[in-house]
């Protein structure tokens, strides 16, 4: 079983600044939490954007829930961020292309050219079986 996970990605796109693994995440979503907004606030000056996982295989596509969250974050910070989505074998990066607020473009990342943290994002998207893990490092994990 896979469950969605999310993270805030550093400005150089090479590191995870903060994992977002709240209670209640599931195979269909990561719930809305105030703590994620606070983490975004703390990271806004040094982040490129956010990433989250989708269960299953193949090229993932942003859901309406995703797109409206991207629009909300971009509006709040008055900046355009990047938003990665990773399935268990492919990844995309979603960016605003305009002109309307929900106009986001999806670019497929070449296999083998994914950022290194995608592997860890996938690992954290596994349910308690078969890879048990315990997180305690950052705020809302």
């Amino acid at each position, binding site marked *: 079983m896979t469950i969605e996970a999310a993270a805030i990605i550093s400005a150089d796109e090479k590191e995870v600044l903060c994992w977002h693994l709240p209670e209640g995440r599931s*195979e269909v*979503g990561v719930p809305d939490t*105030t703590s994620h*907004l606070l983490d*975004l606030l703390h990271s806004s000056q040094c982040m490129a954007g956010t990433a989250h996982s989708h269960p299953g295989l193949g090229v993932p596509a942003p859901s309406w829930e995703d797109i409206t*969250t991207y629009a*909300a*974050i971009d*509006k709040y910070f008055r900046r355009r961020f990047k938003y990665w989505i990773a399935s268990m074998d492919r990844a995309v990066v979603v960016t605003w292309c305009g002109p309307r607020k929900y106009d986001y473009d999806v670019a497929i990342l070449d296999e083998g050219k994914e950022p290194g943290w995608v592997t860890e994002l996938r690992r954290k998207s596994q349910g308690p079986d078969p890879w048990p893990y315990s997180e305690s490092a950052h705020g809302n994990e």
Partner: protein
Amino acid sequence: MNEITQGLAVVPPFAVQPNEARVIVTYVEGDTFDLPRPVIYDGSSEDDFKRWAVEMMRGGGIPGRPADPEAELDDYKVERLPRSANAEPGQRDFNLVLIRPKTGYGC
């Protein structure tokens, strides 16, 4: 003027009745504000809270904040924090509504 902004030229500190709520909007970075008077809490929907806030933002009903005809809260989340009937002194004893950017992801 509309039903919300009417009579708000002077904004005194306000008391919040048990069936009302204080509303705080976290709009954009560095721009968080209270609605200048309480709104009806019981029976109001999330869309009601957002609609009232947008009406005030567009109409210039927020003290210290110019009218913003483009204001919208479409992608914002409403959190309802009910009052505690047994609040101790110093604890929040009124209903609170927070409107902030949504942060959920879903497939």
